[in-house]
């Protein structure tokens, strides 16, 4: 395999990491340190690497020890920190996925494999997550013999047994990076095309994350050629690479002897073994013959050649020539995830390491990560942990428990309690990645810092990409302070994660759900400019070729004031309210009266929160004695429905009333202007003579005579499928399309306040000059008592005013240098503001950045204050043609793309125009139960059903890969044993009802406004799935 490093071409072998391949080619210097720019070499053989950080592709800073070599790999060494190149093309296609398990095992070393086997063979659903390309953990690096065969054979056979368990899933090349509340673990799977972020939820977790060998702080311990003993052993055993020809082993722990033996077996000369623990009794059988003697003592320094690469090791006054110094400083159990789970650690004096102490979650550590060293002991511990996890999740043991194999390893003996040695603290590195020396730490403790957390912040030790995994900092600080080692909090992520990985497929048009109306494609075709209102795309204005925004808005306004204009008002929230007590309920949540509203009439209402502040407004119409249709503002639709249900469920459950969202069911076309009757007559002749604030039914829906512009206006409501046809017809009849900007101009000119524009949660109806809408007759409504609170009842509050001068929205207003308010809405002919203690005719100063603009207070009505325009032009009888609208389904445009993308393993289609009903109260005996006393019924109309056929459409995904596609965006457990029927949940962040309709087939009931977004998302998910399946 050919690869490029710093522009030079090299050859490596399949299975090499980039670090192994560089060592294979004799590359000793792989980068320069972050602050001091010192030459550095490969230090470890895993993700704990502090030195060998390189740039690969768009990834500015990755550990060469974790990069798998592939043909044509191009990497660069770093000088200092990596830098993101914003211009670099990132070709990755990252993804995410949600999985659930009874038992999640993290780490596939001896303990993890054993735990997964014990739990899996007991019948539990097991997920085994492991960082390496294949299971085995340290067995891949070692020459340990288990039951007379290489340890790797044991690992391979365990993995083969796991592969036969249908409910066990092994995620290789996958690093668990975060452990959150309630056994929620996030892991990153490295795939050739781009990472996948796994969201894992498990009833029990077994942590089998192993241990990191750690460094010792001695002078010159950062030179290329100084390496962890376990890493030297891994390069020799696993990759067949000799990291040096003549080695000194600094054996503070027994792993040094194992490294010496394996290096010698691979052909290296062992120049010396230095063991601070003492004499020949440490030389176990395994190293006999490798070295003549063991030096008792410590390494006190190193020497280097002209490039800074190691060429000698100082032990006291003796210099030993060597090009490799293998440091076995002892082991740090990998307690990061345990600590993230809020588990408490303790320091073990014998192991000289932090080990798990008290668990905070449904978790247990096994093997080296809890200080249980030795392969056989780790396997035994893993088996116990797996068996326990299975039992605790309801899987007793009908099967024989796997046996613990015999190991040829000697009994481990305690490591030396040595963290720092030599006498040049400024050259002794405690944190290689951050270039923090013993002298730096001494400065911190000398300055009076006595906690590990403070020392970390003062020196930056442990804050690098490697989080100090191999560093000697805790022990050095303890030695400086003369106390026991203190640990800092381990925080996610365990290894660095790129933002591209976190984003997954949520990029560009899929970065957030988008809602569109039934008329959206027509708006696009007309060249509308859109604005985002919540998740909605709303036409902002409709420019003609060559028109500026100002010109377009002026033209649209003129049409609405002098002719006829039309707006897509479908985004307004709509709630169907039914039940004997519906009127009474509305009396309690609105400030004004609804129980007295005649059937067939509409009334504008304001809702307050309990503190008396305006929460939402809209028009509610009485369809029948026990039946109302409420409209809400676009932005508050969901909150208002929540609000109504909260009061009903938690305070007034005895009121007989039910709420159904019909926002997406009804498409709404507002027709405004003195000529509106002519247009409406051609669609709904029965609406022509409607009095103001009434409505009528017509062949395809309802027409309401309500106005938000001061002009004669109608709102035509038709079910979603007819929305586009009605819109096109209205425009054919001569109405000029207008957008939200013109809507705002028209309403501001009339002085109508907008919730969220003039209000901000501190404004009462009275502040808006709308005391007239606050009932004095009703004994109570939500917010009433607060209107009598001293602060809301006082004079001198900010109230709605008008200004005579066009000053920018947000400008502050002052009177005699005192702040009195701010501008809330501003258009050339209408400026609204909220200000306190000012009256008409008063002169104020508006502040726009540095500019001071004199303004005069005027009444907040700029157009037709006498309301003479409301009834428009009389209707002149004309040729009225019949109107037969065509239907469009929400995902109708996707039919051809669905067809083209459907493959054998996954198929996608829309099932359009399914008649749907929501039923409350009585069980209809069919359909999908959505909640207590709540059903969705398809087909024939059930008794008391609210029609919602336009509210949702049905997308169907089927085939053996359907579940794998869905789990990239659906957080609930879709396992066939759990997900048997249906659920209301989210898919790709959009609310859906998901129904399993066959072995491999699902129906997705999605709100019509989300259908286009979800269709795009599903197509993207399907493409990603098909691509990954091919690999």
């Amino acid at each position, binding site marked *: 395999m050919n690869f490029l490093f710093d522009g030079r071409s090299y050859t490596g072998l399949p299975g090499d990491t980039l670090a192994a391949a560089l060592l294979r080619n004799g590359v000793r210097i792989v980068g320069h340190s972050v602050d001091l720019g010192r030459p550095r070499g490969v230090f470890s053989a895993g993700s704990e690497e502090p030195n060998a950080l390189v740039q690969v592709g768009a990834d500015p800073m990755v550990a060469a020890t974790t990069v798998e070599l592939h043909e044509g790999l191009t990497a660069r060494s770093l000088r200092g920190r990596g830098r993101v190149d914003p211009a670099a093309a990132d070709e990755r296609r990252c993804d995410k996925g949600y999985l659930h398990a009874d038992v999640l095992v993290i780490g596939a070393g001896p303990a993890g494999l054993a735990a997964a086997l014990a739990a899996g063979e007991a019948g539990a659903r097991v997920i085994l997550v492991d960082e390496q390309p294949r299971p085995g953990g340290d067995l891949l690096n070692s020459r340990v013999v288990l039951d007379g065969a290489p340890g790797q054979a044991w690992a391979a056979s365990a993995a083969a047994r796991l592969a036969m368990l249908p409910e066990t899933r092994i995620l290789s090349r996958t690093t668990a990076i975060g452990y959150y509340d309630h056994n929620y673990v996030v892991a990153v799977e490295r795939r050739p095309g781009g990472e996948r972020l796994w969201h894992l939820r498990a009833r029990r977790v077994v942590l089998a994350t192993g241990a990191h060998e750690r460094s010792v702080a001695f002078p010159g311990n950062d030179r290329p050629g100084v390496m962890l003993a376990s890493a030297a052993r891994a390069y020799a055993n696993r990759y067949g690479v000799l990291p040096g020809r003549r080695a000194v082993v600094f054996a503070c722990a027994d792993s040094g002897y194992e490294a010496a033996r394996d290096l010698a077996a691979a052909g290296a000369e062992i120049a010396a073994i230095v063991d601070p623990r003492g004499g020949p009794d440490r030389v176990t059988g395994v190293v006999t013959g490798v070295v003549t003697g063991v030096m008792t003592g410590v390494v006190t320094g190193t020497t280097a050649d002209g490039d800074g690469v190691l060429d000698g090791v100082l032990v006291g006054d003796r210099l030993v020539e060597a090009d490799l110094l293998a440091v076995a400083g002892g082991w740090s159990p990998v307690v990061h995830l345990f600590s993230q789970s809020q588990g408490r650690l303790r320091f073990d004096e014998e192991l000289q390491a932090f080990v798990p102490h008290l668990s905070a979650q449904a978790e247990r550590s096994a093997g080296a990560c809890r200080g249980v060293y030795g392969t056989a002991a780790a396997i035994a511990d893993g088996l116990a942990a797996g068996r326990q996890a299975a039992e605790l999740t309801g899987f007793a043991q009908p099967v024989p428990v796997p046996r613990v194999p015999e190991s040829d390893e000697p009994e481990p003996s305690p490591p030396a309690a040595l963290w720092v040695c030599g006498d040049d603290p400024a050259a002794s590195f405690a944190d290689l990645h951050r270039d923090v020396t013993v002298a730096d730490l001494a400065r911190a403790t000398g300055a009076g810092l006595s906690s590990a957390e403070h020392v970390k912040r003062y020196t930056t030790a442990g804050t690098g990409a490697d989080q100090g995994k191999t560093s000697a900092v805790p022990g050095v600080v303890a030695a400086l302070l003369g106390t026991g080692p203190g640990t800092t909090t381990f925080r996610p992520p365990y290894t660095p994660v790129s933002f591209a990985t976190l984003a997954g497929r949520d990029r560009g048009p899929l970065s957030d759900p988008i809602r569109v109306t039934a008329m959206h494609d027509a708006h696009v075709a007309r060249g509308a400019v859109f604005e985002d209102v919540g998740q909605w795309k709303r036409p902002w204005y409709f420019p003609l070729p060559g028109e500026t925004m100002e010109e377009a808005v002026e033209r649209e306004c003129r049409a609405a004031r002098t002719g006829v204009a039309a707006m897509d008002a479908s985004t307004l929230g709509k709630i169907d309210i039914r039940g004997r007590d519906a009127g009474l309920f509305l009396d309690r949540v609105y400030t004004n009266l609804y129980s007295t509203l005649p059937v067939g009439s509409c009334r504008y209402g304001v809702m307050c929160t309990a503190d008396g502040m305006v929460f939402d407004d809209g028009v509610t119409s009485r369809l029948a004695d026990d039946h109302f249709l409420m409209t809400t503002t676009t932005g508050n639709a969901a909150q208002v429905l929540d609000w109504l249900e909260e009061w009903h*469920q938690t305070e007034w459950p005895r009121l007989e009333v039910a709420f159904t969202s019909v926002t997406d069911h009804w498409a709404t076309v507002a027709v405004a202007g003195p000529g509106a009757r002519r247009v409406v007559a051609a669609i709904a002749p029965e609406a022509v003579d409607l009095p103001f604030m009434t409505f009528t039914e017509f062949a395809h829906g309802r027409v309401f005579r309500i106005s938000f512009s001061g002009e004669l206006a109608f709102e035509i409501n038709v079910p979603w499928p007819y929305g586009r046809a009605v819109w096109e017809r209205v425009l054919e009849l001569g109405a000029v399309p207008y957008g939200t900007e013109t809507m705002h101009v028209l309403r501001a000119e009339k002085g109508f306040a907008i919730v969220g524009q003039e209000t901000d949660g501190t404004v009462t109806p009275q502040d808006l000059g709308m005391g007239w809408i606050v009932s004095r007759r009703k004994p109570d409504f939500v917010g009433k008592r607060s209107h009598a609170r*001293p602060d809301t009842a006082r004079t001198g509050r900010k109230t709605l005013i008008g200004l005579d001068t066009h000053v920018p929205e947000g400008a502050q207003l002052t009177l005699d240098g005192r702040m009195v308010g701010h501008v809330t809405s501003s258009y050339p002919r209408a400026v609204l503001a909220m200000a306190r203690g000012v009256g008409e005719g008063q002169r104020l100063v508006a502040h726009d950045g540095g500019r001071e603009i004199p303004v005069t207070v005027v009444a907040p009505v700029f157009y037709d204050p006498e309301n003479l325009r409301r009834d428009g032009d009389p209707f002149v009888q004309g040729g009225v043609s019949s109107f037969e609208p065509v239907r469009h389904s929400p995902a109708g445009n996707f039919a051809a793309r669905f067809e083209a993308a459907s493959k054998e393993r996954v198929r996608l289609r829309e099932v359009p125009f399914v008649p749907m009903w929501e039923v409350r109260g009585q069980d209809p005996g069919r359909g999908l139960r959505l909640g207590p006393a709540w059903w969705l019924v398809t087909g024939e109309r059930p008794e008391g059903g609210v029609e919602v056929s336009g509210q949702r459409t049905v997308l169907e995904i089927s085939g053996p890969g359907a579940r794998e596609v869905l789990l990239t965006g659906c957080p609930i457990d879709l396992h066939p044993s759990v997900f048997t029927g249906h*659920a209301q949940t*989210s898919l790709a962040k959009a609310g859906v009802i998901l129904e399993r309709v066959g072995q491999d087939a699902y129906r997705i009931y999605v709100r019509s406004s989300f259908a286009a977004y979800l269709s795009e998302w599903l197509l993207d998910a399907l493409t990603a799935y098909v691509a990954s399946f091919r690999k």
Partner: protein
Amino acid sequence: MMLIECPHCGPRDENEFRYGGQAGVAYPERPAELGDEEWAAYVFMRDNPKGWFHERWFHTSGCRTWFTVHRHTVTHEIRP
């Protein structure tokens, strides 16, 4: 991300729910008869314990049911 047991739908991720604050704060029967202090106590004042807290949740993305749980505000342990 917490896992919250909805009494109707079973365990679901926290982000399917809306938080409803302290449980058991009833709307006063006759607000008009309350003094300003008492009314302000209802509107604005809530407990904020370190430890077990009886609180309300609303399953917005699921069955749209309000329910209460006891949650430990330090450990996030949840029980019915």
